[in-house]
């Protein structure tokens, strides 16, 4: 962060919704540790190179900022509420040994094996949603028809939430994350409603624990006396919804858009559906609309690229910029559906890397497989440059994906 640097403003502008900001390339080359101004007006250091982003994300000394840290805020005061600023009362252990214990307690529900077991159910849900979309006729919105409902239905099943309450979950999730569309007051109200709902849900589970994630955590607590408190169970349910819904919903929309934007990609997958796995990874890497990246709040001095970042600095790690770093990926600006290995940073890295990544991967693979099978003639109904963007601040994405077939 050289003092003569002009502070760039985030979000950086792009020409087209699927394209990366031209600025990334210049930053990686000339200014890998840049000073940026967030929409709140607060300043932060901005990392764009693969090695730097990965090193800081994996550094166990630092975590996402929480309220009261004095870290740079994303949104101005009063906007965004709990999801943007971190909520005081309902927090999960976020560092060190208690964090690892929480992760392992919850993480065992998200193992690769479990995800494989959940897969047939997800396929049925996705097929049903695609059938509904076909029934409603062309053109359709792939985001509303498949991208948004699939992950919320899946997380409701995992949390043991009855199917009839799924729409309420969708609403809450939307309200937490759409920082600009809803006022701070509105997010606060949604937050309170959600807490009340989850408290009642956990009461009910205690009476009759099932095989879902929360039921399992409750049973564990009753049998070995260890495990999560009620507050932690509520925060876990809420955290999983917030962390897993909009991110996956957006990614389904962006993945399909990227694959349809160049017909050759879609044709390639139709010709060889065994590429679905690597195509999903490459879509995750290639997505330029991940939002700003992850914040880390420095509680000690750190040196990056020969520059000293003093304790108290907020650092924004741009995973999408790192994912396009030529130093780490050959032909980084080319979407290669067979790329392997593909160590992209879209799920972060290190002790905080996405807990739900096996789930997200499975959902993305299922969505793509079902679309290829049921709608091989799928195409975008508008030119890729005209895809409408999400107006929220936390999660970048497309607000609709108009398609026809």
């Amino acid at each position: 962060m050289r003092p003569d640097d002009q502070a760039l403003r985030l979000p950086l502008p792009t020409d087209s919704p699927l394209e990366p900001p031209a600025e990334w390339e210049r930053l990686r080359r000339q200014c890998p540790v840049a000073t940026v101004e967030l929409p709140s007006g607060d300043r932060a250091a901005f990392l764009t190179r693969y090695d730097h982003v990965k090193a800081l994300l994996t550094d166990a000394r630092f975590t996402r900022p929480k309220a009261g840290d004095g870290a740079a805020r994303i949104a101005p005061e009063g906007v965004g509420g709990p999801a943007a600023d971190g909520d005081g009362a309902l927090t999960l252990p976020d560092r060190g040994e208690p964090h690892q214990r929480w992760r392992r307690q919850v993480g065992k529900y998200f193992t690769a094996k479990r995800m494989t077991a959940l897969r047939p159910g997800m396929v049925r849900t996705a097929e049903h949603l695609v059938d509904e979309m076909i029934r409603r006729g062309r053109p359709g919105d792939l985001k509303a028809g498949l991208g948004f409902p699939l992950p919320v239905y899946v997380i409701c099943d995992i949390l043991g939430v009855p199917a009839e309450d799924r729409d309420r979950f969708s609403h809450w999730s939307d309200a937490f994350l759409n920082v600009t569309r809803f006022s701070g007051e509105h997010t606060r109200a949604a937050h309170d409603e959600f807490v009340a709902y989850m408290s009642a849900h956990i009461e009910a589970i205690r009476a009759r624990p099932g095989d879902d994630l929360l039921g399992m955590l409750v049973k564990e607590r009753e049998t070995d006396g260890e495990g999560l408190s009620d507050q932690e169970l509520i925060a876990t349910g809420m955290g999983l919804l917030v962390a897993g819904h909009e991110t996956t919903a957006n990614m389904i929309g962006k993945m399909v858009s990227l694959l349809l934007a160049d017909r050759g990609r879609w044709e390639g997958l139709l010709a060889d559906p065994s590429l679905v796995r690597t195509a999903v990874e490459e879509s995750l890497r290639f997505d330029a609309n991940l939002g700003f990246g992850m914040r880390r709040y420095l509680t000690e001095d750190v040196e990056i690229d020969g520059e000293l970042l003093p304790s108290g600095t907020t650092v924004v790690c741009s995973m999408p910029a790192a994912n396009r770093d030529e130093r780490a990926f050959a032909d980084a600006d080319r979407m290669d559906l067979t790329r392997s290995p593909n160590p992209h940073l879209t799920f972060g890295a290190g002790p905080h890397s996405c807990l739900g990544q096996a789930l997200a991967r499975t959902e993305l693979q299922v969505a793509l497989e079902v679309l290829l099978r049921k709608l091989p003639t799928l195409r975008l109904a508008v030119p890729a440059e005209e895809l409408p963007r999400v107006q929220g601040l936390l999660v970048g994405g497309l607000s609709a994906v108009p398609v026809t077939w």
Partner: protein
Amino acid sequence: MKVSVDQDRCCGAGQCVLTAPEVFDQRDDDGVVVLLDERPAPDRHASVREAAAVCPAAAITVTEEPDA
């Protein structure tokens, strides 16, 4: 090739199991990686290298050995 895993670093993401299921598993009670095969057969080397490269916690170490 010799493989080792660092269970303390593992964050339970399961990428290794998805990539090389014959060589890695996850414990049922906490999702932490288990090494099934310390010296995998040559036809598995590529997927093991891939698993090490994509492990988000850098918990997998592969040592290449001549003729192994």
